């Protein structure tokens, strides 16, 4: 069943075309990958879908509801949440509160009840906290619940960000380079985590990633962007063999990295110097 339909989506910054004519029909519980060189419009796509930017052209409909023009919080509330390329946790808040923040819309008490701590407040807070703790337990973060998020090691911060994105019980999860700055062993664990997440939660996932191994192993379908334009799409097998993709990634030289067995293209390592943890 189709859950998200993006049609002819386009956006530009001061005349510079960042994304154009992007289409995507995402089914429930589907796992789709978006790849492409840096600056090819991948993050712009996420910023448009999650409502940070208002799309210049095209439409995004979620279960038949148009999202263009909606505030990011309403979009999150409807059921699309995301993570960030550069982790954006609430650093000074506890691990538990990071997750509880995302349950904002699930709260069933009024402002007055909050102000007086009466009525539904106490039972609701208890329920919310228990749900958050369950989620943290699933992600192996329960023993860190009271620590400030900034004290977590890098890998756990990524995991917490994912837990936070799932806290609002979304139907679509947008993951922006969750593997950035990770070594092959960590990537292996991340793949397992994502597979497990996919099975455990009723969600469709759109994944932006430079680590080819992740995309190839996880995604049912892949879309390839270059300069904001979709240059290819298909199953991992089709993408692996598409000469256009290989050209974009490797400048025609090395066929093996995409087609072959290597752990990753090396893209994620050369492009930036993120902290390892």
């Amino acid at each position: 069943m189709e859950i998200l339909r993006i049609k002819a989506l386009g956006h530009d910054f001061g005349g510079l075309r960042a994304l154009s004519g992007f289409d995507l029909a995402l089914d429930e519980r589907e796992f789709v990958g978006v790849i492409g060189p840096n600056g090819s419009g991948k993050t712009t796509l996420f910023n448009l879908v999650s409502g940070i930017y208002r799309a210049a052209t095209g439409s995004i409909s979620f279960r038949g509801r148009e999202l263009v023009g909606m505030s990011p919080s309403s979009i999150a509330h409807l059921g699309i949440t995301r993570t960030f390329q550069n982790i954006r946790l609430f650093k000074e808040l506890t691990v538990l509160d990071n997750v509880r923040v995302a349950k904002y819309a699930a709260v069933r008490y009024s402002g007055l009840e909050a102000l007086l701590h009466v009525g539904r407040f106490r039972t609701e807070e208890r329920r919310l906290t228990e749900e958050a703790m369950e989620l943290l337990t699933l992600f192996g973060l329960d023993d860190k619940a009271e620590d400030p998020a900034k004290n977590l090691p890098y890998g756990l911060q990524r995991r917490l960000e994912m837990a936070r994105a799932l806290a609002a019980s979304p139907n679509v999860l947008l993951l922006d380079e969750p593997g950035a700055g990770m070594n092959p062993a960590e990537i292996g664990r991340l793949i397992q985590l994502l597979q497990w997440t996919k099975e455990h939660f009723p969600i469709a996932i759109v994944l932006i990633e430079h680590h080819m191994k992740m995309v190839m192993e996880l995604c049912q379908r892949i879309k390839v962007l270059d300069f904001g334009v979709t240059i290819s799409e298909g199953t991992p097998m089709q993408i692996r063999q598409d000469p256009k993709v290989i050209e974009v990634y490797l400048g025609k030289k090395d066929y093996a990295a995409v087609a072959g067995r290597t752990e990753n293209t090396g893209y994620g390592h050369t492009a930036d110097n993120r902290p390892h943890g």
Partner: protein
Amino acid sequence: MMKIFRTAIHGQPAGPRRPMLAVIIAGFALSIALPYFGLLNKYVIFVLISVGINVILTISLNLVNGFMGEFSVGHAGFMAVGAYGAAVTSVNVIPRWMGAAAFPTAILAGGLAAALVSLFVAIPSFKTRGDYLAIVTLAFAMIVKSALENMDVLGGPRGFMGMQQFTTLPWVFFWMVLSLWAIRNFVYSAYGRGVLSIREDETASELSGVDTRKVKVLTFALSSFFAGVAGGLYAHLLQFINPSMFDVIKSTEMLIMVYLGGVGSIAGSILGASIYTILMEVLRPMGVWRMVLMPAVLILLMIFRPRGIMGLRELRWFVYKAIPHSGAAAKGQNIGNT
């Protein structure tokens, strides 16, 4: 000693609440008894009342600056609206025979008036951030002051009088406890977590589903309400107000109390307001040089301890926990270190 402080928002399992309630009841009883039996002279009572009013102002400003991380540097504007609102209600609306019985109504009216005008700052805060919002708030305070000076019905620059001296120690204690309690409750709720997440990362907050606009409006309204309450108490203490009482210097004083005691901390607000108010009284013999010291303290604080004494930490008594011993509470499948 430091064991009783924890990073804000979480904390050790909250102990029994009884001591807090006992402190409040004892404090209230003392606030009635001490003046009644003549155990305090007028000056000491005046200082204690000033401490109380300043605690209200400090917690109110801390909610916006410390907890939400937005810049309000024109809080005196809200105080002014509250002071005038309460004073006008008291003098022109409430019949005089009602006396002190109607005092809470006047204070409430001042608080509500201030909460209403807070929209003038809350709405620009949707789009404007950082130092630009600071200018908006300062400009707002300037507009309030200029507007009051232009209103002849309110006495214009000469000021407004006719209020009876209703502000007593027990009343100030009551309003102080109310402000601390309400703001503490608010901070430890879903809205409060929204407030904190705006301070940490507004975009991530919005994308996590927090309706940041609503949270901002509520926070500014709550903060302004209590700034207005403090203004109303102030007006009924001095029995005379004029627009220039609520100038940039008043706002600066509030900032000092917040940044002295500690940003994002309820205990810090109490501490900052108390230390500052008493220090300024002790230094009274310094005369005008006291006024030189005041901004100097602020500058030094900003350079050497920008978060203040209790910055982002909280006294255990104030922490609310939904589940007393969380951490061990939840059970479930653990994918741990797969």
